[in-house]
């Protein structure tokens, strides 16, 4: 019974921390943010790994293995695509800066 309250405290504090930090993410990065949190939510991988590896029984192992598959797609794919997006965000490129300087 105590454990559930401990869990609720952790949940509450993490939700506030998450809220506070994410509030600061600019609209510019909202799509990468979604891909990023999507990768993080693949943390349910942690639960499915135990189910797939501990071999409690056949049903749990099979369900766990499918869950590992789904969660891995999210973790690996989510980080990959976030990186792919973030690599595209560039400040003024040097060429344009040079042109701007020449004009002014």
């Amino acid at each position, binding site marked *: 019974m105590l454990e559930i309250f401990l869990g609720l405290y952790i949940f509450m504090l993490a939700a506030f921390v998450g809220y506070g930090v994410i509030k600061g*993410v600019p609209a510019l990065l909202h799509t990468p943010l979604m891909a990023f949190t*999507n990768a993080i939510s693949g943390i349910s991988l942690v639960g499915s790994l135990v189910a797939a590896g501990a071999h409690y029984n056949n049903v749990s192992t099979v369900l766990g*293995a499918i869950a590992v598959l789904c969660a891995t797609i999210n973790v690996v794919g989510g980080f990959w695509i976030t990186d792919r997006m973030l690599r595209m965000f560039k400040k003024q490129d040097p060429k344009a800066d040079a042109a701007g300087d020449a004009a002014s």
Partner: protein
Amino acid sequence: MISQVETLYLIASFLFILGLRGLTAAHTARRGLIFAELGMGFAIWGTLIHPDIMARFEIAGFFETYKWILLTFFIGSAIGIAISALIPMTRMPERIALSHAFGGLAAALVGVSEYYREQVVAGHMDHTTMGAIGFEVLFGGLTFTGSLMAFGKLSGLIPGRNITWPLQNQSNILMFGGTFVLLIAVTIDPSNQILFYAMAAMPLLLGILFVAPIGGADMPVVITLLNSYAGLAASATGFALDNNVLIIAGAIDGASGFILSVVMSKAMNRSFRNVLFGAFGKVDEEDAAMAASGGERVQEASVGDAAMLLSGAGSVIVCPGYGMAVAQAQHVVGELAEILEANGTQVRYAIHPVAGRMPGHMNVLLAEAKIPYTSLMELEEINEDFKNTDVALVVGANDVVNPAAKHNPASSIYGMPVLNADLARSCIVLKRSMRPGFAGIENELFFAPNTVLTFGDAKDTLEKVVEALR
């Protein structure tokens, strides 16, 4: 062993939050991502030495213990990388919706697996664990089918318009209430398997029914809400397994989805309730009829006229919308900007929060076209500048530039913050046809005396403009 596992989880949680902090600025975002990746690595490492897995390892050895994990991990990675590396940026909303579906499914399956282990096989499950598993399966299932529906709508596999039927909201709410009652009943009596499986099946149906009536431009809210649910499902998994890193990561994800859905709803001047239960479709028809009777004329401009206007402008603000994504016109927008800038014209971009089908959709597309993020402006940053701007170039946007939202209380989008494209000295609208936007209402901007319309595919038109300017 358990203290090692917990230490690794603690490090992982710390790195997740640190990583998220990195995302608060574009130049630190990639570093943040690396922190989060490391965090995930620690969490996986911690799990692979989990006491239950190690107990199996003692008996069965390495191969027997890890074979399913390794197999599914490699297949999953291959699929994840293939999807992420190949999908075009214009289809990002679908990609995100699909991954929410995977996340929901994973959580729901872990829940069922846990129920099977503790209740069906071992014959004992306490009420708190049962309650947590109930929430996990509920949110997981809802997210799974709801996201699949969203994916179907975004990719055009299912009609994107709102699908409605009589007593829709009433029956949906009733079913949701029913699922909740089942959840409570199964928490009180975990041994009743029929109740459990009924409770696990209901959210699958609910996910479909909830998303079916929600149409195209409301998708950003749906996607962000499902993002939030995916997080809550992960968090509930944490409660069921007494796993703190799951609770923390899930809570962060839930908070993120929540914030984004509030941002989206505000940008549309609508409440959550209105997006989820509002019958937007009904308002449309009256409005469209009203506007059609107006019978005003629009001024059409040829490609040459548009090119002339642009070449004579000292400052241009581009207002992109979903149409730019559909036409895949972002690269040619970048080319046009390059030519104009070489001419000494200042080019900036006004990004409305709900332009596109997900938060930040337009930013990603323009970044892909190598446009520096320093010229991508948010609504509040740039809206005052329109009146001192020579040309507003509207590329595939409609409702987000409709001035009716500012002064016509009869309009169904009245009160929604919009880009002041109408205040620019002149306004060029690139449009496929005179079809109204998602909200189904006529756009006053098109009939304004300083507005000209150039009809055709946005990409084709811009390519011709670029040619004319060269």
